[in-house]
């Protein structure tokens, strides 16, 4: 009888766990995040939506370490639930944006093509060098970042890359205040 309850409890845990979305960030970081944030509009008029809490997904184009922080330029990608939770390259991108993170991130996680979800506040557009050209990009001051080290592949496809089984390194980075 006890075994039956144990199995049922385990199965229930699995089912509940399967249906839940992964919590990448602390709940206090997610407070006040605008679920209906219009990236396209912000991309066009970045200075009209300042200090708003947002969550964005993207693919890293380049990154630069400076003054103890990291500036990441990312291509915006939609965040999907399936086939794997995270930013997915659907062939549709609304443009690039910059992420200012006042902390350190290990080099492997800053590789081009890595997928990233950032939670933070919108700031005035900043000028970054993209492909040796100065670009004014809307900027997010990151509270937390979650990076999947996919190096250009989609999250769901990564495991099969490389003619074998591969675990996907992923990590959350938060500012010290969080």
């Amino acid at each position: 009888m006890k075994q039956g309850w144990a199995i049922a409890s385990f199965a229930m845990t699995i089912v509940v766990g399967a249906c839940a979305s992964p919590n990448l960030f602390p709940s206090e970081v997610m407070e006040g995040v605008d679920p209906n944030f219009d990236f396209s509009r912000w991309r066009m008029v970045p200075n009209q939506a300042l200090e708003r809490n947002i969550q964005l997904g993207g693919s890293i184009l380049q990154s630069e370490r400076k003054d103890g922080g990291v500036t990441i330029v990312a291509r915006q990608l939609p965040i999907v639930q399936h086939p794997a939770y995270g930013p997915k390259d659907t062939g549709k991108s609304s443009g690039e944006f910059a992420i200012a993170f006042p902390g350190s991130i290990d080099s492997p996680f800053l590789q081009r093509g890595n997928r990233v979800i950032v939670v933070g506040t919108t700031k005035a557009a900043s000028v970054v060098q993209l492909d040796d050209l100065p670009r004014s990009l809307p900027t997010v001051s990151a509270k937390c970042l979650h990076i999947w080290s996919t190096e250009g592949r989609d999250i769901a496809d990564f495991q099969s890359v490389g003619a074998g089984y591969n675990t996907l390194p992923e990590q959350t980075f938060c500012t010290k205040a969080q």
Partner: protein
Amino acid sequence: MERTRESFSDRKEEEESAAQEIVNKPVTSRQSGRDPAQLLIYRFLTFTSNPGEIEMKVLRIFLLSLWCVLGAIPLAPGTGTAGEIGPSKPRSSVIVAQKADNTSPQGPSTMDIPPGGTSIEDVLLQKGTITQDEWIQIRAEQEYRAADQSRRLDSIEEWKYKTEILPILRDKVNFGLNALQFLYSHLDAQVPEGRSQDSFSIRRSELIFWGKISDYIPRWHALFEMQSTSLTSNTPTSGASTPTAATFFRESYIDVRPVQSWAPNLNMIRMGIFRMPFGIFTETSGGLRDVISSPYLTSVGGGPGAPPQNRNGTGGQIEFIQERDYFVDVRGKIANRLEYVVGIMNNNNFQANALVSTTSGLGGANGPKVGYTRVRLFGNDVSFISFTTLQGESNNAGTLINGRGKGRFDRYAVDFRYTSKILPGFMMQGEYWQGHDGANATTVGTAANGACQNVAQCGGSGAPGIQRRTWYVLSKYLITKGPFENFEPTVMYEQFDPNTSMGNDLYTRTIVGLTYYFENFPPKLQSKIQFNYEFRHHSGLGTGPGTPPYDSATDPFANNAFFVQFQVRFM
């Protein structure tokens, strides 16, 4: 003289006035107020300016008149005055202008002349430096260039479109080099006549092709091992074996993700031949392995100098688990922590496909299917512990896997990997396997038929059903800073017990390695040179009556070995 000056002045004013009118207009309307039809006729007539071709010109006028009658009359009443323009235009410029007419909307009128401004030739015309004819010629050439540029752009656009739909640029088809490995090896054992302790060889030469068809077919995959063309012996039920089977491909599979919203809980169905999800080593690509030799887990014993199979089940080559097989399975991940695989396979190695008869339908499997499952629990993103089991039956007749008997077949395993985040670069992994092989296990190519332990009757080794066990622990540390950056010391220890109910038959090996990475971006890129020294030991072939004599001097698995391998991998 005065009059001459006045006349000249008047004429100049007239010319400037006329020039002012035509500035900033496309060449099609710059024939001093003539309309496009007039210009067309003018160009037509002046196509040949040779005086000796007057007859042709008359003929053209006739044809032109006929054309006008047929419908082009509304062009202009002054068509017939085209001859007034005169035949003095250079032939080439007129042809050019004719071509430019078609593209005049994209021509210089909109491209070259700044709004409200004038071009150089306009200024020159206004100042009388060039004649109107020269002006027309210049403009015509400009328009020709513009038209040519436009045509080139169209051509580039067309190629761009063709290029964009190329499968290789849409992730439908990709190819890469899974592993190209050049190996130097030295073995301390006494080798047979005609063989050497030292040799150069190509360990792997594997091309890989893959692609993503759609979200529902997220991957197709094919890997070709360039050394797989040699025939493998079969295992007949009686008599001598013959070289029978070979497959050029080592891996070919299709992934199907039937319902997107079920993923990742039910991520995909995989079908084909691939590295089996048995533990860690088996599923690790040959281009990403941390040591040069394969673990005893997948193959041990056999070869020239090594003791052959015996009644103890301790000799001959033993492939405790095969690296690849033909299978269909279901894979998924629950709550981002629990990964599972459930499937069924042929259980007859990668060569089995060559035995399939597509006409009769006779298969390459040599018996009942074997089911398998693996559950992997992640502690974090890159550290885990997993449990694997294989359950079913095996057959010795027709087998393409060494050491398989007839009867009950099972494997149980636990494995782990710890990738340190506290000490980046440090990784440790290990596997522990145990399992039962049916009676009368045999090596591939030795006739076998049935589970009886009478070699004269059933062939094979005559060994009873055997419980086997193996385990290893591997550890490595990638140095990421300082003068030894990109160096990676590695150490691995393993044991293989071919018969757990018997002593004095243990294989042990310690591998000490050093790897230097030229490029290290796994899983896609990895170029490296590896130095491995293997301390090998083989206790013997067991105990008790009937145990064959054992000579460790000639057994490669009882003598140390040294390997150096240079690898390139790119995908």
